[in-house]
């Protein structure tokens, strides 16, 4: 399918919900503002033009200035996928949960909460998933200061392990 046509389909399905739509091969990069996030994802899932009903991935990244959510949705029969990015308010990261649309995103949202502290509103069970329940801070935020806990075992200890770069 031609990229221009793919782009058109996505723009048509999203209406005015997206800030930017770019097609690149079979991948469509979509940027959405936070207020429209849930509506845009729902449109991508339900619109017959896009039919992106497969929850492929959800993650986030923090640059130090900006925190962004990254959703990847695929349409299996049509062989295209959408990479939806959505900038968050870094001071008070919040996003609407889509765990009810895709149960598969339930754990992914918990993971993003665990690592970045993004509060997914409407998530049925937002708890830490990988880290211990009493962990302090959200390690993947760039302002997180990791404290080397040191090994209780005796032996040579690399206190600066991982700080080489």
């Amino acid at each position: 399918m031609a990229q221009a046509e793919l782009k058109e389909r996505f723009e048509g399905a999203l209406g005015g919900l997206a800030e930017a739509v770019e097609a690149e091969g079979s991948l469509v990069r979509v940027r959405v503002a936070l207020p429209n996030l849930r509506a845009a994802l729902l449109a991508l899932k339900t619109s017959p033009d896009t039919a992106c009903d497969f929850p492929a991935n959800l993650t986030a990244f923090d640059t130090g200035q900006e925190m962004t959510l990254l959703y990847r949705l695929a349409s299996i029969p049509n062989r295209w996928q959408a990479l939806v990015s959505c900038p968050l308010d870094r001071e008070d990261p919040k996003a609407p949960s889509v765990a009810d649309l895709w149960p598969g995103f339930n754990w992914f949202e918990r993971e993003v909460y665990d690592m970045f502290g993004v509060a997914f509103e409407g998530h049925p069970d937002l708890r830490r998933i990988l880290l211990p329940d009493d962990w302090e801070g959200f390690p993947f935020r760039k302002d997180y200061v990791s404290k080397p806990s040191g090994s209780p075992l005796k032996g040579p200890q690399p206190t600066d392990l991982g700080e080489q770069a």
Partner: protein
Amino acid sequence: MNPVRSLLGGLWKIFGGMGLTLRNFFRRKATIRYPYERRPVSPRYRGMFYLKWNEEKQRLNCVGCTLCAQACPTNVISMNKVGKGTTAGVDEFTMDLGRCMFCNLCVEACPFDAIYMGDQYEFAVTHKEGSVLRIADLAQGGPENYRRNLETLRRLQEEAEKSKAAGDKPTERRAAEEGA
């Protein structure tokens, strides 16, 4: 389906499986009786490290360039460089195998053919300190070659000192002293 037939069919399938296990009962066994028999390892096997000994030059190939240490993702390698230029070598080379992933990156990084991974794979130790290997453990051919390497390096250095004294280049001498 007819219950009697399904029961008999099931029994027949079970007998098929039992025939298979009976055949394996008499087949040659796959066991290798490990401490007595060993499966040969491949020539590329990534086992215990060694520093290559150069019989001709009577020294270890390592010149202490730290490329392997830089290539190491987990900071396993540390070394002490002596000498400079053609006389460069190492008098200490430490590997903390407690952190080593045996990923082969140091071997690939080495431009001097100095560090290799051998076919030795039994290196369990009873103390954590035992997993830290010094140059005497790592030198190919054992501690003997480590001593000979030191002698060669000292000799090379003395020769360099002499030639330097003859040519008298103060900057180089300072560097050599620092290196020592």
